[in-house]
């Protein structure tokens, strides 16, 4: 199916046909996910498109603000109704605990495409782009099949201009697309799916400190493989169609502080929240000094936590990161002195990387837990000790090799600040690397697990 679509796409005579083929592919994909998902996305995109057009025509600030709030109410309200019902203390949805019909309506990937769709209005409100007159272009933007399930969350000002000209075939870009697909498949099928049973064993209920710590590391690698793998593949598929989308992951486990971590991990969500939550809030509180910054950080990570999912668990997940970054904001001067004293590289950098990584692992343990009680139990085990691993069957080979592979790949990306580092290497290295990658991919893959981020 993909091959046919791709062949038709590149045989298309002009951009209009290219866009139609992409839209057709996206609609087919959406309907394959479920009629409810497709219907909700199409109707809400139509409303968003109409609001953006009206917003552009409105001149008065008050009127513009009203349309913006209308859009926010529409999107956040829809998400709240469909996803966040369980936020209520009783654990029920907005329509009661027995709303089985509501479950059938919950669209796949709603958290992702709702944010993406919102940028249609936000970009017009902040005058970053004119309102798109072509509804089908908006629909393609909101439901673009590589990104509709789990992002990256694209801004309309980056995506829509690409639809305005014909995409020309480029062998180099196609090679890059294949590279992204292969790398993404490796991270998902070889790293994440092989680590899934390792994590299950280590983080079973009642696990002791050592097991939880090791399980946290395993889960961090698994989550990276799963989500970064999906993002790489999504970007690779988009690139095969000549469309550029945001780089969502770089080298998150080699960053030296939490602030940097969020520039490397789910970067598209970070950029969105930075632009529309942290930026406006910190600007409004700019006279309040550090307090203003800390308040903006807390607001941003509260939004991030709530965006991730239902219940207080995700608020706690956001809270851990908010606490970490607030600490960074409050100790800025002290940290600068440390850098001056010890230098940017060397053991100080290693300590920073280790502290950041372990803080992130702690937040991931919360993120993975079924509820807040389970999360607290695991964190408690972590701080209570019990570091022996007797009675725990640890697959050291899978864990160790996966860790080394991820760290090596991230170090390459970090060194060149680019995921296409491979193309700068000599041909012999690429030949050997492709052979090894293909071999691992076809011989050491695990039975596929559902992508973790599909639940959002």
């Amino acid at each position, binding site marked *: 199916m993909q091959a046919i679509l791709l062949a038709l796409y590149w045989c298309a005579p002009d951009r209009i046909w290219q866009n139609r083929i992409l839209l057709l592919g996206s609609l087919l994909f959406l309907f394959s996910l479920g009629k409810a998902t497709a219907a909700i996305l199409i109707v809400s995109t139509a409303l968003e498109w109409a609001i953006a057009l009206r917003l552009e025509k409105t001149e008065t600030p008050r009127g513009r603000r009203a349309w913006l709030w209308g859009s926010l109410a529409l999107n956040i309200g829809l998400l709240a109704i469909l996803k966040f019902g369980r936020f209520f203390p009783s654990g029920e949805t907005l329509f009661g605990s027995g709303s089985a019909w509501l479950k059938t309506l919950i669209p796949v990937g709603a958290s992702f495409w709702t944010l993406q769709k919102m940028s249609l209005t936000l970009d017009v409100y902040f005058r970053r782009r004119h309102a798109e007159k072509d509804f089908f272009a908006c629909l393609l933007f909101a439901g673009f099949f590589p990104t509709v399930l789990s992002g990256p969350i694209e801004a309309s000002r980056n995506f829509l201009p690409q639809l305005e000209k014909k995409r020309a*075939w480029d*062998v180099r870009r*196609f*090679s890059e697309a*294949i590279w992204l697909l292969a790398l993404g498949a490796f991270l998902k099928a070889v790293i994440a799916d092989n680590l899934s049973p390792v994590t299950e064993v280590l983080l079973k209920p009642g696990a002791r400190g050592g097991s939880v710590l090791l399980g946290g590391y395993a889960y961090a690698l698994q989550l990276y493989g799963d989500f970064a793998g999906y993002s790489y593949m999504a970007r690779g598929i988009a690139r095969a169609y000549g469309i550029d989308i945001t780089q969502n992951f770089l080298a998150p486990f080699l960053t030296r502080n939490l602030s940097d971590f969020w520039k490397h991990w789910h970067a598209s969500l970070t950029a969105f929240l930075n632009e529309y939550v942290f930026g406006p809030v910190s600007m409004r509180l700019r006279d309040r000094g550090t307090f203003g910054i800390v308040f903006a950080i807390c607001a941003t990570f509260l939004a991030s936590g709530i965006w991730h999912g239902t219940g207080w668990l995700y608020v706690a997940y956001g809270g851990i990161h908010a606490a970490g970054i607030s600490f960074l904001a409050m100790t800025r001067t002290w940290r600068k002195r440390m850098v001056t004293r010890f230098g940017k590289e060397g053991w100080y950098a290693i300590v920073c990387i280790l502290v950041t990584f372990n803080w992130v692992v702690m937040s991931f343990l919360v993120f993975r837990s079924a509820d807040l009680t389970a999360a607290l139990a695991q964190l408690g085990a972590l701080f209570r000790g019990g570091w022996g691993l007797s009675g725990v069957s640890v697959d050291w080979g899978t864990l160790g090799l996966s860790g080394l592979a991820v760290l090596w790949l991230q170090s390459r990306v970090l060194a060149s600040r680019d995921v296409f580092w491979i193309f700068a290497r000599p*041909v012999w290295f*690429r*030949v*050997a690397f*492709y*052979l090894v990658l*293909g*071999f691992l991919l*076809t*011989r050491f*893959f*695990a*039975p596929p697990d559902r992508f973790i981020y599909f639940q959002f």
Partner: protein
Amino acid sequence: MLIPPWLRSPFRAFPAAARACAVGLAATLLTWIGARAGHYDARPRVFLLGDSFIGNYRYAPGTRLEDDLARLDPDCRIDNWAQSGAEPLDFLLQLHRGELLAGKPRAVIVAFSADKFIAHERRPRTCSHGTNLAWLPWNRVGWRVLRSLPPGQQGLAFLQKAALYLYGGADAALAVWREKVEWDHDRRRMCRAQGDRYQRILARAREKLAYLDSLTIPSQPAFAALPFARDAAFMLRGLREEGVEAHVVLLPWGNPEIYARVCTPKALAAREALTTRMRDWLRDQGVPVLDLTAPEALSHFPGRTWDDANHPKDAAVFEYMSRRIVETWPRPGNWPVGPVAASEIDDDALPADGDLGMGGTDGI
């Protein structure tokens, strides 16, 4: 004219990827030629197909089943293609792997125990996540197996087949590594095992065999309709269609001491009933069967000859087995059942599409 330039000169368009493919293909070709040369033998060839009972790391080179058989009948060349975790469909794929790397056999000996068709937990149709699908043959048998797979697995089969031609060399290296390094390491570890290992084995066996207590014994037709049984029937008929003589060894079902310790009387009765079903099923297949579950044969498999619940470790076991096999040795022209006509093999022999996908199967 219609061919785009990048397809006309792939080495220029994709210098590294095209070279990687060329290197992979060349390595595969060389490996396969080397394997054929290494396996060259004028004597009739017999393949052993089975799971970890036959392909067993607990035996050092020189004491394995193929070594005993070769000593007893030096007129035959014995190749062991058994693989740990292999399912009935894997047996068929192992056969085609052997045919590609060694040549067509005159006969095969397929060995499995009476629990082979019982899927008490979700179990995939082929082992190693379906990597064996790479050995699917380019013939009618292969086509029928392919059609019986769910769509996702058909895609996997194509991917694995493509990878087979690129990674034949690496596969060979991996196989050598497993046999020379991993098996050796595992054997040493087994020899050094501490006393509590036996307790762990008991605990694991208790866990794994708990299903026998709640198992409903299927009727004979229901037993024959089990997805794994249909795969096995298809394999046996496929062998005969291809003119390969098949001989089945019904292996003892596990370490009697461990079973006696961890199984309830009900579970032991279920085990007996299933063994009877398997015997009857084998009789219906019209293949010669060496039944090692008969009381006289079982006396050669006492508890001390087993390493754990399901794997023997004593050289005497394979010596006995090879003696019994050679007594009923398939000799050219001396088989009770000749090759069947292709028309006898119907598509119903295989599980229907989606019936037993790689995602697993429910219990009987």
